[in-house]
């Protein structure tokens, strides 16, 4: 995946309530580099209709590992926003 100089591209995965809020289960986002999970969330919440109803600090995973808002994101990463878990 190639991105414009100074930016990086991530695939954002959405589940359950978050997917319903924006009517889709994944979006591609470009964010200025360097970026963290918090930067990706901020970009998402301000650029997609309905996404402002996603919390500003949602549970998240980067490349299928639990992450925190300050976790760095690299070009091509898969970022998942996880609504409150309800397994078990």
């Amino acid at each position: 995946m190639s991105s414009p100089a100074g930016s990086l591209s991530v695939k954002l995965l959405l589940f359950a309530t978050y997917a319903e809020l924006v009517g889709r289960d994944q979006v591609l986002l470009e964010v200025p580099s360097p970026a963290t999970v918090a930067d990706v969330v901020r970009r998402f919440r301000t650029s997609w209709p309905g996404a402002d109803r996603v919390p500003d600090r949602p549970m998240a995973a980067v490349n299928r590992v639990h992450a925190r808002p300050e976790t760095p994101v690299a070009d091509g990463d898969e970022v998942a926003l996880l609504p409150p878990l309800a397994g078990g």
Partner: protein
Amino acid sequence: MVHLTRTAINVAALTTATAGPADGGIATFIGLVRDHHDGREVLRLEYTAFEPMAEVEAERIVQEAEARWPVRIGLRHRLGTLEIGDIAVAVVAVSAHRGPAFDACRHVIEEVKRRVPIWKQESYADGTVGWVDPTAAGRGRENADRADPAAARGYG
């Protein structure tokens, strides 16, 4: 899928597959679909998951427990549509002694609830559906430590 399944969970088979002749104690937890939730009558429910991550996270939990206690763990979580009384999750912890079996079993189910990306949509008797949020107001005590799995594992 190993720890996730779309077919009925067979606890006896899971137990047999996990236990051996040196094991004296088996602690098991079985989570069932209840007929009520927060005062509403539930007819059935649907579990969905971020499947590749859920499978990996479940395996991490199993391996962590097997490293921390002298146990072997069997774990299954069901996905798809479940009816009242169906088994949603089963954890089997086998050990030579009961103490580690209980401790590991309880730890694993708590960690599954806290860390494995699975969601539950309930269908109610009044015809509505709703996503379950165990962290919502009024349910904080039982699920208080579901919050922030990344922090607890030291990510970041």
